[in-house]
């Protein structure tokens, strides 16, 4: 240990000088250092920084990729929703049977998918439309109906039905008492599927021919209604498509047969962006003058420049070698805390007593090696008291912290009396 230290510190002044000379000569002699060397040394110097940057970039890429990839949502009947209300199960089964299922949420994307599938022409296209908020307008509905081979609409509103030609109308709600309902018609799909659940279903009726199946008792309409050419099919229940009830009764059969007729199924759930823009109020951006759009970015650029201006250091940081300095009473304080934590009342009282005796002996001029009894006697004589009382004070045995504080103050008082007299 000692040898190492000796070697280190004796070398340091000697080794510092040649190193600095070397640096000076490097700077002045080789005005054009070799580029490769410079790059290599910089690489080495900033290796840690480069590694950290790589890790951060990798993390960012990972985050972006995971954000962009399709993920679950909570929308009712969504093919990416595995909750009881979702449509993941139905979509999954259809895909397993070779139907290309594509979920869309805007009218434009739906049309483009329809165009593409029309081009490829693999056995017709079915569109599932579920628009509980009535986002789609009449002309769009009609366009959709025209461009798809088969349009399956789930629980449409009056508005939606009217937009689709008005051949099918609403006919009330399925009675609560019924659990299942039989097809009761000769359409191919219901006939094959058999009974289905009626849970919270709406009823629809076709006016101009077409099928109206699954009529509830005495009701006018049924859960399954078609136009005459069966291009438009209305399903009155979201329940039968949902993950929750798909496997009950004939639900699955009806849904899969209805939706899986064509080679492609477009699963269209309209979103607020389908509302035509002419309806909404102009945004703040549209109201503001044109230069406002340029002000922010330009000021940001100026801010960046001023950061560079103030942040660029003139030369590297200078270090200050600080010496180690410790407060001297620290050890005594540490010991005091140890006493306190251990409630070492006896140990503390021993120390206090010994200290008082030594100081009393000194002030009574008894010499360094006076016996405690001599000190007691001399102090008693000086104070004009009986030695027993002084002895009692000195030999107090405090048991608790409260007693210790009291006794320590008594000792101090005694000491003060002796020294002041």
């Amino acid at each position, binding site marked *: *240990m000692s040898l190492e*230290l000796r070697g280190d510190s004796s070398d340091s002044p000697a080794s510092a000088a040649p190193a600095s000379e070397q640096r000076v000569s490097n700077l002045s002699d080789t005005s054009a250092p070799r580029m490769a060397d410079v790059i290599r040394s910089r690489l080495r110097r900033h290796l840690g920084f480069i590694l950290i940057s790589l890790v951060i970039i990798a993390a960012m890429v990972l985050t972006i990729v995971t954000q962009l990839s399709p993920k679950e949502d909570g929308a009712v009947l969504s093919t990416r929703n595995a909750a009881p209300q979702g449509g993941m199960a139905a979509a999954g089964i259809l895909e397993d049977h070779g139907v290309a299922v594509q979920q869309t949420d805007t009218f434009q994307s739906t049309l483009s998918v329809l165009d593409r599938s029309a081009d490829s022409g693999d056995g017709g296209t079915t569109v599932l439309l579920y628009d509980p908020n009535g986002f789609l307008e009449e002309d769009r509905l009609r366009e959709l109906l025209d461009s798809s081979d088969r349009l399956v609409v789930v629980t449409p509103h009056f508005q939606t039905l009217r937009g689709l030609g008005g051949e099918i109308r609403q006919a009330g709600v399925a009675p609560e008492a019924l659990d299942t309902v039989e097809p009761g018609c000769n359409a191919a799909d219901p006939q094959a599927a058999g009974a289905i659940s009626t849970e919270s279903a709406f009823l629809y009726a076709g006016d101009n021919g077409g099928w109206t199946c699954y009529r509830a008792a005495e009701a006018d309409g049924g859960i399954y209604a078609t136009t005459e050419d069966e291009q438009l099919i209305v399903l009155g229940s979201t329940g039968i498509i949902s993950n929750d009830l798909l496997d009950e009764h004939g639900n699955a059969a009806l849904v899969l047969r209805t939706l899986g007729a064509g080679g492609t199924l477009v699963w269209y759930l309209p979103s607020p962006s389908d509302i035509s823009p002419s309806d909404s109020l102009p945004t703040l951006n549209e109201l503001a003058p044109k*230069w406002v759009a340029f002000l922010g970015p330009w000021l940001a650029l100026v801010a960046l420049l001023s950061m560079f201006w103030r942040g*660029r250091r003139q030369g590297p940081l200078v270090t200050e070698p600080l010496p180690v*300095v410790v407060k001297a*009473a620290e*050890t*005594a304080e540490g010991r005091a805390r140890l006493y306190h934590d251990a409630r*070492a009342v006896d140990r503390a009282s021993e120390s206090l007593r010994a*200290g008082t005796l030594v100081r009393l002996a000194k002030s009574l001029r008894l010499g360094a090696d006076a016996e405690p009894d001599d000190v007691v006697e001399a102090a008693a004589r000086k104070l004009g008291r009986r030695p027993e009382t002084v002895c009692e004070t000195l030999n107090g045995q405090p048991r608790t912290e409260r007693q210790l504080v009291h006794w320590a103050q008594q000792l101090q008082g005694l000491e003060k009396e002796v020294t002041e007299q």
Partner: protein
Amino acid sequence: MAISGRFVLLALLGVVPVLMFPEWGTVLLVCLILCGLLVFDLMAAASLRTVSLERSPSGSVTLHMGTDSTFTITNSGRRRLRASVRDAWQPSAGAQNPVQRLDIPSGERRRMTVRLQPTRRGDLKADNVTIRSFGPLGVAARQRTLSCPGSLRVLPPFHSRRHLPSKLRKLRELDGKAAVQIRGAGTEFDSLRDYVRGDDVRSIDWRATARRSAVVVRTWRPERDRRVVIMLDTSRTAAARIEDEPRLDTGIEAALLLAVLAERGGDRVDFFAFDRRVRGRAGSASRGNLLEQLVQAMAPLDAELIELDWSQIPGQVRAVSAHRSMVVLLTALDGGAPEEGLLPMAAQLMQQHVVVVASVRDPMLGEMQEERTTAAHVFRAAAAERALLEREAVANQLRHLGVEVVDAEPHQLPPALADMYIRLKAAGRL
């Protein structure tokens, strides 16, 4: 590369055309103009490859006194150098104006003076000088850091100098008293002079009287050319701060006062700082002013976080002085287990020398010991009492061995040690 506030201001002014003609074309144009200005200024700035630096040595300065550090910058390039120069002294050197603007025409040189106000003892360093060379527009600058090592030795302040006159007076009184003193231990023959009334008849030199008509007495003076060896402990205990000063600095003050006093008293002084090896050495034997040598030797001392190797001390003392000497050990009495190191070593040294152990007492312990209002305070008082008792025990053991112990608070230690020296000298124990 660096940009100036002027460039930022220009960029801010660029907002006016951008807002007046809010088009992407305008933005592009303004950006191009700004970039053009930047590139032009950078290209037109003086090259820093042709700049050379030369620093003149700074020497040494006493702590808390100001000094100047100068270096010259030579511009051997073809363009005028408009520079902002930063001299990178370490913070405790207290540079008042480390960044200065200089304008150096081609082929000329300028001197830059940096005012330093050091706040710490020791060797303070400046490694680099960084130069920014601005272009004629002053919007952008090239920047380069050149190595230009400089060093300033900051000497201990010697505050205890103020005690010197009174102690010297005491020493002279001792001298004067000794002139009529009868012969005894610690005195040596000084001269013969005529008897005057009041002189001790016992000091009449009868032989000399017989050779002359008048009565002649011998005079004596305190022995001179005694040796004082001062050992300063730089081990871990020296790092302890007592009041506002590390123990090491108090030791330096005490050693300086004692050394100067002993030198004036006609004695030879040797000093060394030691922990496991000698960290610094000075003495009357070498040529030159003793005080100067001492402060130069003490300036770079720092407490090392290692244990003092007591077993080497007798050898070190022998190497410095083969004769009987007054050996002063400036160390700590409460440094762990002094029984193992200090006591045996002191016993060994006592066989040949007079040993004085000087140590700083912590006034904080006394305060802790007197404060007894709460349980926490009483435990603190007990711990302080324990520490004081341990010190006292060590001091007593040393006194039993015949070692003189000087135990004083930081500001009292230098005069107390000087008094001890005067007392020993008066008693003829040197």
